[in-house]
Structure formats: C-alpha cells, structure tokens
C-alpha cells in the first residue's frame, strides 16, 4: 500500500519546529515511511486490533505525521476492541490516534464506540480486514460531532485509499 519499504516499529521523520498559524486542520499527511510502519504494526498483530499514535506537526491546514508510536492493546477482547491509557507513551499534541478495524463486518469509518470513547482530537481508522490496509479514514472531533478529514501521502497530495 505504501511506497516506502521502511518497516520500523518506531518510525521517526525529523522536522524543524516552526511557529504556524493554527488554521482548522483539513488534511492529515501520512508520509510513506510512517504509513509502512503503521501497516507493518497492523499486519503483525492481525487479527487483533492494533493502534497507537502519530506524532505530528502543523503545516497550515495539514497535520503531517513525523513519528509513529505503536501502543500495546490492553483490551481483554483484542479482536473486537483496542483499549489503552493516554500516558507518557503518547506524544504531545498535535497527535493522531490510529487503530485498525480487523473484522470484515466492521465499517471503514468510526463506529459508535469509537465516536463515544476516543477522547482525542484526531483519529485515524485503518480498515484492514485481512491484515493488509484497504482504507484510511481520518476524523477530527468537533464540538458536537466528528468531521472527516482527507488522508494524503506526503507532498504529492495523493489521497490514500478510502472505502
């Protein structure tokens, strides 16, 4: 799915800290090395749901992932749920919480449990019913509901597959 062959658990792309205007985010950019790292994590743990965080920097209306931080699934039913605690493992904001939907019966977007119980501003759902990622869908929590964001791969502005 991703162009890069990078397969690392903790993938980091360095980027200088700059001050930017906090425009409302419309797009999440997941560069190929990060994307590959996420897919590797999901494939490794399939059929259990996998998840973690993407450390990000703002670029105008875009959030660009710079580091992949996989998190262990603490759920007692890991094939249906991904559960964790937001602690020191989570990178500081801005960040994106991602998790995989691994059942063919799952939706590619947010389920009701996702909408209610992901206490994060940004969420990424990777639909991977057979272990390989078929769809990337990003969301931002608004005051009353979640809004969908576009997921792009690096500077090409090419949208990652969305089902």
């Amino acid at each position, binding site marked *: 799915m991703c162009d890069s062959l990078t397969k690392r658990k903790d993938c980091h792309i360095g980027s200088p800290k700059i001050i930017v205007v906090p425009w409302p985010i419309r797009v999440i950019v997941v560069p190929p090395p990060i994307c590959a790292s996420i897919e590797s994590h999901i494939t490794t743990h399939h059929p259990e749901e996998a*998840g973690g965080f993407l450390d990000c920097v703002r670029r105008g209306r875009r959030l660009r992932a710079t580091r992949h931080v996989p998190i262990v699934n603490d759920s007692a039913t890991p094939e249906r749920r*991904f559960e964790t605690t937001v602690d020191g493992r989570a990178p500081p904001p801005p960040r994106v919480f991602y998790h995989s939907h691994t059942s063919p019966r799952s939706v590619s977007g947010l*389920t009701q*449990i996702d*909408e209610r119980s*992901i*206490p994060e501003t940004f969420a990424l759902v990777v639909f991977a019913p057979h272990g390989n990622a078929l769809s990337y869908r990003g969301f931002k929590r608004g005051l*009353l509901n979640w809004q969908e964001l576009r997921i792009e791969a690096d500077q090409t502005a090419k949208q990652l597959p969305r089902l």
Partner: protein
Amino acid sequence: MSVILYGIVGIIVTMLGIGFYVARKVKGDSVNYIVAGRGLILPLAAATLMAQSLDANATLGNTDLVASFGFWAGAALPVGLATCLFLTGLFFAKPMNRMNLTTLPDFYRRKYGRTAEVLASLIMSVAYAFLLAGNLVAGGFLFEIFVGTSFQVGVFVIAGLVLTYTVAGGLFSVAYTDLLQAGVALVGSIGLIVFVVTQYGITIPEGMGPTNLGQLTDPSQGAYINLATIVALGLGDIVAIDFMERVFAADSPETARKACFIGAAGTLIIGIPFSIVALSANPILVSLGVETGGQAILYTLLQNAVPPWLAALVIAGILAASFSTSDGAILGTSAVIARNIGNIRVDESEAVATDGGAADDTGNDDSLLGTDSDKLLTVTRLMSIPITLLGIFLAIRVSATGMLLVLAFDIMLAGAFVPLVLGLYWPEMSTTPAALASMVGGSLTRLVLFVLVPTTYAYENTLLYINNDIFTASFDGLPTFIAAGVSLVIFVAVAYATKDSYGVRTLDRDGRRTIVAGGEDDE
C-alpha cells in the same frame, strides 16, 4: 520604634529569611516550584492549607461583619472556609492527589479537553487577581495605620516583598512561610480571646450572638447573605487553585486528606475567636470612650484595648496572613496562566533532576530565569510579575475590590464547581459539551443577576446596576444559589442530550484518559 513596629519588621524579616532559605529546594524544576516536588509532609501541608484559608481580607471582614451585623455574618467566613477544607478532605483530596495534576485546570483538560481547560483557567485567574488585590488592600491599610506609610506605599511594599520570595522559592517558600504564619496566627488568636475574656469579659449585644439562628434562617436578618457566604466559600473554594495546588503537593493521598481536615479545624480554631472578640468589640470601645471612625474595628481594638505586645502578635499574624494568601494567589495564577492558558507543558519524567541538577554546591538556585530552568518554571516565574502588577493596580485603582472579589468567587462556584464534582463522581455522564455549557451558562447567569440586583453581599453595586423593579436588595444572596443551580441543570440536560452522540472522556484511577475503540459495536 514601637513594639508593634518591631513586630511588623520581625515577621517580615523572618518570612523573607525563611522564604529565601528554602528557595534553593526548587533546583530549576517546575514541579518543585509549583507543587513543592509533590513532597509536602503532613505538618507542612496542613499548615499551608490553614494559612491559605485565613487571609487578611477574611480576618478583617469577619470582625467588621460580626461587629455590625452579628456573629453569623462574620463567622460565615471561617465556617465557609472550614467547610470547604472539610468537604475537600472528604471527597476530593485523595482522588485529586492521586491524579498527579500540577494545576487544577489540568483536570478540566484531561476530562473535558482544551477549551474547558482554558475557560476554567480564565474564570479562576480573574477570581485570584481580585483575591490578591483584596489582600494587598488589607495589608496596605495595615501599613498605613501601624507603620505610618501611605496606603499606596504599603501596597507596593507588601507586593514587592511577597513577589521576591515567591519568584525565588515557589510553593516551597510559600509552604514554609505559611507554617510560621499559621503558628503566629494561632497564638495571636488564642492570646487575644484569652486577654479579652479575662480583662473585659464577653458582652454579646442582644440578637447578635451565635445562638440567634435567625441570622441563618430569617431573610430580614441577612440569612440569604450569610448562607450564601457559607455556600460560596464552602463549595466555591473547592475549585480554588491555591487550595488544590496544596492538595496536589501533599506527599500522598492520605496526607492530602488529613491535611484538609487539620486545616479545617485550624481555620475554625483561629477564625472563631476573632468572631467572638468582635462581638464584644463595640461595648469594649464604648467603655473606653473610643470611636472607630470608619477604620477596621479589629485595628481600633488592637490600638486602644490590648497591650502592645499582644497587638504586635495579632498584627504580625494578620500581616503574615496577607503575605501567605498573596503569595499563594501569585503562584497559583502564574502557574495556571503559563501551563493552562499558555499551554506550556513539561513532561515530569524529563524535568530537570531534583538531585541538585541546577543548584550548585552552595545551594544557590542559579537557574532563576536562566537556561537551566525548564520552560514552564521560567514562564511561571515571569508571569508572576504582571500578575502582581495587576493586583497592585486593582488594589489601588478599583474601589470596589471587595465586591468584585465575592463576585469573582461566585462566578467560580457557578462556572467551575459542577463540572469538577460531576466529572469526578458522575464520570459516565460528564461530556465535554455539558461541561462547557454549564460553565458558560452558570457564569453568565451570575453576571446577569449581578447587574440586576442592587447589592452584592450587602455591598452596593456601584459598578454596573440596571435599575429594575423585579430584583430588590432583599434578593441579595440568592443569586449565588440560583447561578449554581442553573449550572447544575444545564450540565445534566446537556449531558443527557450528548452522552450517546459525543461520549465521555473516561479517566482511570490515576486520572489518565482511557481510549476504547473497536471495529464492532455492541449488539
């Protein structure tokens, strides 16, 4: 130099000495600076809670109100503050200490998100600017009467002294100086009542004593105002940033709880004797042929009816109370502005080591505003300067400091109390929209009632009053309850409306947010 002046100079020098001596414990670490390294042992935690609750404003207000309106009008202040500490110990100290929070708005961020954090921070910061100003006013008048400076010079001197040791030592300096203040205040309070009882006896004017419960039940005797004072302090101060900062700083949840209980007892033990003495103040002064002339009745009593050594002790206690509450207000507000509004976070696991990291072998903290401090420490220290300047400005230029202080604390009760309590004890229903709506709705209700009622806690509303025939002065006191009630109703209504669509942020026992996600919904 008079004995009283010796007392004032002595307490100032001692407090500065202690404040600067313990400042070396900061060692360039914001956690040391803001919450004393989370290591306050029980005596320190209890003393600092007690000292923070007994401020100069409350002491002078207590005696003036008792002398004018009866026991419960003034005693409502220490009773309300003690109620707050007791309830905090009973329901909040242990869970809040366990969460490893640095400032109170941290809870709003974890439970409700960034917008609620900023909103709570703004409400609390405004309230504490007026608390600081109120204590500078009380200290300024003390300097004017007993030192002979002008009021303005007194305000500047106190603000300057408090600022220096607070900037240097943060909560370490505050806590150790509070220990001294609590001791002096306790001895002074007991000494005063023993002297008055033995020399003059307690004379209770008819209908003004503690047994006249009409002051708490009959609106014509000011019951609404007295009850509102107890409720506003007893519940509203639970969301006080300085109280909670001390709860977070206790070395364990058990210490935090016990410290609150001891602080509550100490507040009553020190505060109630002043109420009893004040009951007899007017008869004593009349018997001595002295008129107060608009001056605080406690000051008049100390100048004319007690020996200088005892007056010096009590005045030292009041001055120390002014110092201790002012330093807590400066520190708490600076930390909230830097961390919660400025969004400067420090990962405690990466904070500068506390084993001497920034301090040299002589113990000097050479990192003040320097590169060895973590960023939160530096900005918190820097923010204390504009906070102090704002307090000085309000103390000198705003005549209605007292009224704005009680209004600000009412707004804290109306805006921040319900989201805290329900966030802790009804977490499965506490959604972010509910908290935000409750904070905005409660605060606005209190502000609207402020401009529609001609008096606020018996202070005439000279700031912004819209003349109307609906709300008279007899309505005074009720806005406190109404605004808090509105906040509660809005919270519950919005929580029910949004619990399914929005969901709640669930915190674990240590106050960390938990994430539950899944590809399949429950059947």
